[in-house]
């Protein structure tokens, strides 16, 4: 583990220069990128790494005897070690590369489902899950005639812990819950929730897609059985994700997909499977993206979560107070423990209109349901405007957003 020193402050100008996209203009205005919940921008180091791999190192991994293949395999496995260190897994057998957080959840829904779910069993999710942590479980429930149970949240976007505990019974087989809500920003008390589930001998999957880019995650400290996240939301390339699973758990699960690299020996009578983590990595993996993810994590480590968290905390407080200047603005998701995601509506104005006007001012936000329709249903709204921030966002970005919103309100009211 890398110690996170909060005393180290962030050099924002330097950091912003590391991200080429942040230097660009949109509709003739300097870009203000506030759609980090959807995807994050890539630092120069990651872009250079991908170029280097494609220009001079490309070769399929785990296959050839030749120099390039061995070199690429080495880089790929080194990336796995970087990821292991990043979330403090015990060893690299616990780190499986996937296509993304969605891919990871689908893999668990299939493999864990095959092994452990039968008719009448129950899986617990929460009302604030991304569709990616709902639909794979619904599909599993349909396959196995199992049942989905849902933890509700309160008006601030805080999961109701009493309700959570009441959902447990002798049929509960798994809890799948998000670490941080992508539409409300709430940081859930997952460590306590995991402990409670384990007291009932129920394993837990944590969706960390919105967590790993904002704070240090330690899977051993959390004691989760599965932890998933996407590379592109943590400043790495698209098309790569991580599935962490406790080795003892992963060992018991059947493979998700069949094909190359996941096999030990293939005969028509019987095929035996490769060991962890390769058992879950069928076909040619997106090795360039995996290595790019490793570079992204090294970049984050070079800044340090102490500095990142301190800056994001300041940014959160500043943005929260400035948004209050706008008359009729209501923020959805007011948990005490929150990251810098602001989901909001302005009275009598459609979010899509605001989004369209902000776009022309060079400000990128997301409008709509953010792949969390149940959250919108909870508040009986059709969608929100979402400004989601990353550590490279500045106070000036907030100022531009507030100025843009004021202009939009003037036009639309």
């Amino acid at each position: 583990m890398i110690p996170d020193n909060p005393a180290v402050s962030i050099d924002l100008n330097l950091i912003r220069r590391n991200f080429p996209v942040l230097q660009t203009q949109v509709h003739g205005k300097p870009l203000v990128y506030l759609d980090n919940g959807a995807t994050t921008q890539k630092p120069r180091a990651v872009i250079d790494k991908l170029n280097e791999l494609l220009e001079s190192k490309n070769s399929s991994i785990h296959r050839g005897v030749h120099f390039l293949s061995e070199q690429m395999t080495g880089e790929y496995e080194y990336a796995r070690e970087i990821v292991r260190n990043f979330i403090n897994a015990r060893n690299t057998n616990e780190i499986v590369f996937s296509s993304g957080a969605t891919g990871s959840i689908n893999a668990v829904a299939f493999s864990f489902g095959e092994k452990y779910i039968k008719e009448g069993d129950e899986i617990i999710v929460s009302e604030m899950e991304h569709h990616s942590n709902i639909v794979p479980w619904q599909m599993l429930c349909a396959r196995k005639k199992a049942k989905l149970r849902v933890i509700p949240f309160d008006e601030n976007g805080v999961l109701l812990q009493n309700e959570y505990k009441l959902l447990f019974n002798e049929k509960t087989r798994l809890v799948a819950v998000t670490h941080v809500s992508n539409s409300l920003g709430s940081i859930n008390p997952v460590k306590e929730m995991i402990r409670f589930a384990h007291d009932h001998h129920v394993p837990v999957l944590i969706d960390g897609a919105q967590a790993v880019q904002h704070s240090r995650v330690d899977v051993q400290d959390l004691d989760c059985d599965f932890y998933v996240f996407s590379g592109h939301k943590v400043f790495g390339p698209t098309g790569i994700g991580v599935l962490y699973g406790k080795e003892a758990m992963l060992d018991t699960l059947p493979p998700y997909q069949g094909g190359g690299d996941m096999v030990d020996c293939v005969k028509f009578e019987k095929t035996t499977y490769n060991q962890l983590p390769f058992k879950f990595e069928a076909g040619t993996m997106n090795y360039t993206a995996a290595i790019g993810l490793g570079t992204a994590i090294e970049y984050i480590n070079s800044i340090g979560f102490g500095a990142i968290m301190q800056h994001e905390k300041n940014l959160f407080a500043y943005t929260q107070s400035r948004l209050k200047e706008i008359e009729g603005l209501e923020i959805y998701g007011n948990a005490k423990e929150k990251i810098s995601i602001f989901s909001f509506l302005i009275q009598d104005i459609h979010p899509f209109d605001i989004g369209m006007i902000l776009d022309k001012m060079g400000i990128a936000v997301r409008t709509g349901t953010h792949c969390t329709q149940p959250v919108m249903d909870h508040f009986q709204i059709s969608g929100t405007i979402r400004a989601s921030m990353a550590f490279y966002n500045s106070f000036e970005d907030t100022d531009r957003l507030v100025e843009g919103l004021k202009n939009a309100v003037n036009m639309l009211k």
Partner: protein
Amino acid sequence: MALTKIQDQIIEEFSAFEDWMDRYNYLIELGHDLPAIDPKFKTDEYLINGCQSKVWLHADFENGKMHFTADSDAIIVKGIVALLIRVMNQQEASEIMNADLYFIDKIGLKENLSPTRSNGLVSMVKKMKMYSLAYYAKHKA
């Protein structure tokens, strides 16, 4: 007036605008001025769900010409809806079926009629053409 002539008129109007805010302000104005749809047609049956914004569309056929009324919950979208209605209203069904809506591109709103925008406008144009086809077929029969 011919469908193409109305389009050319709109292109002419928009050419006066210097920047995006002017264009959007005009669309907002058009949205506000769009004659209201009969509330009885503002139901799910007439809803074109665009995921991001909603559009309601009703079509009628009078004296051989199509007559549309519509609404949207987003005002800029409603402004574009107003433009589409201005072009398509009181046209022969066969004209609408084969209409090439080049004005959208010319006034810089092309992105709003791309399927990825999910604002209901692409579906609205399709629906307008479908209604026209239906009335055309019925009328012929």
